């Protein structure tokens, strides 16, 4: 592979990165080729010594994606980081992804439950308020007595509050979980490059 082919291949493999980072990376490899040529090596020799562009690109991508997921937390950035790190073969995708997906589902389900509780609570509150006036609208309480309306109101408020508490609590859990994944990924990146001595 000559210089142009090597750089073209690398560019293609990291096209997902922002232009700035891409140019920064490519300039490093261009500089490497240039100095190598000055020292009397051929383009083919330099390409060979640099190693497979695929390996190089994988490493660059994993590094970049994890950093991005850390800087800008989102569901898609963390997914990309996990996939990029998995591409390096640093952990068994199944063993890591399965528990992650299950836990994410549980967290999501609890979010939905919290939302449903708030929504249901509001519905009960509304029905308790309006039932005495509209006897034909029977949403949740059977008879339109004032006492049962008050009871419904209290229950509705309670349910809504409980749901809100659950929602707030889950936000903290979700944030903690996200941080945990990031830390795990970084640890793995470090291990693959550093392979700590004992």
């Amino acid at each position, binding site marked *: 592979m000559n210089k142009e082919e090597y750089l073209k291949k690398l560019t293609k493999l990291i096209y997902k990165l922002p232009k700035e980072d891409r140019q920064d990376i490519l300039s490093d490899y261009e500089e490497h080729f240039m100095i190598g040529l000055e020292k009397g090596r051929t383009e083919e020799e*330099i390409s060979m010594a640099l*190693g497979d562009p695929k390996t190089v690109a994988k490493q660059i991508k994993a590094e970049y994606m994890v*950093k991005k997921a850390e800087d800008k937390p989102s569901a898609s950035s963390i997914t990309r980081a996990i996939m990029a790190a998995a591409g390096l073969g640093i952990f068994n995708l199944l063993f890591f992804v399965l528990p992650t997906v299950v836990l994410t589902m549980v967290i999501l389900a609890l979010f939905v439950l919290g939302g449903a509780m708030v929504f249901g609570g509001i519905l009960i509150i509304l029905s308790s308020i309006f039932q005495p006036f509209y006897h034909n609208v029977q949403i949740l309480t059977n008879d339109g007595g004032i006492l049962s309306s008050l009871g419904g109101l209290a229950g509705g408020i309670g349910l809504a509050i409980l749901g809100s508490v659950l929602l707030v609590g889950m936000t903290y859990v979700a944030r903690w979980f996200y941080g945990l994944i990031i830390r795990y990924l970084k640890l793995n990146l470090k291990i693959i490059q550093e392979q700590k001595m004992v």
Partner: protein
Amino acid sequence: MVMNTQFKKGVLELCVLALLDRKDCYGYEMVDEISKNISISEGTIYPLLKRLKNEGFVISYLKESPDGPPRKYYRLTDLGKKKKDKLVDEWGEFSMGVNNLLYSKITNNLGDIKDE
């Protein structure tokens, strides 16, 4: 094979930091120096340098070169110096332990030298 490459990658960080502790270098210079002693995949040094930069162990700057366009030089930060010292210590302990295992005579509990 896999173990071997991973092992080299780990040592690579130590080598880079140690070289930069002596003087500021550009990428090719480090690759050149390291591959005189260990065979490495030269392309892996740039992602490594990027990570070291992200973690604040090194900084980079452009410097004019007598025979061509400016080159990207790397300099060790104070944090990087500390990291290097730590890694050198760890390496010393590790290699001494391995050498002990490889080259010392096998002894029994009483410290007598066993027949082979």
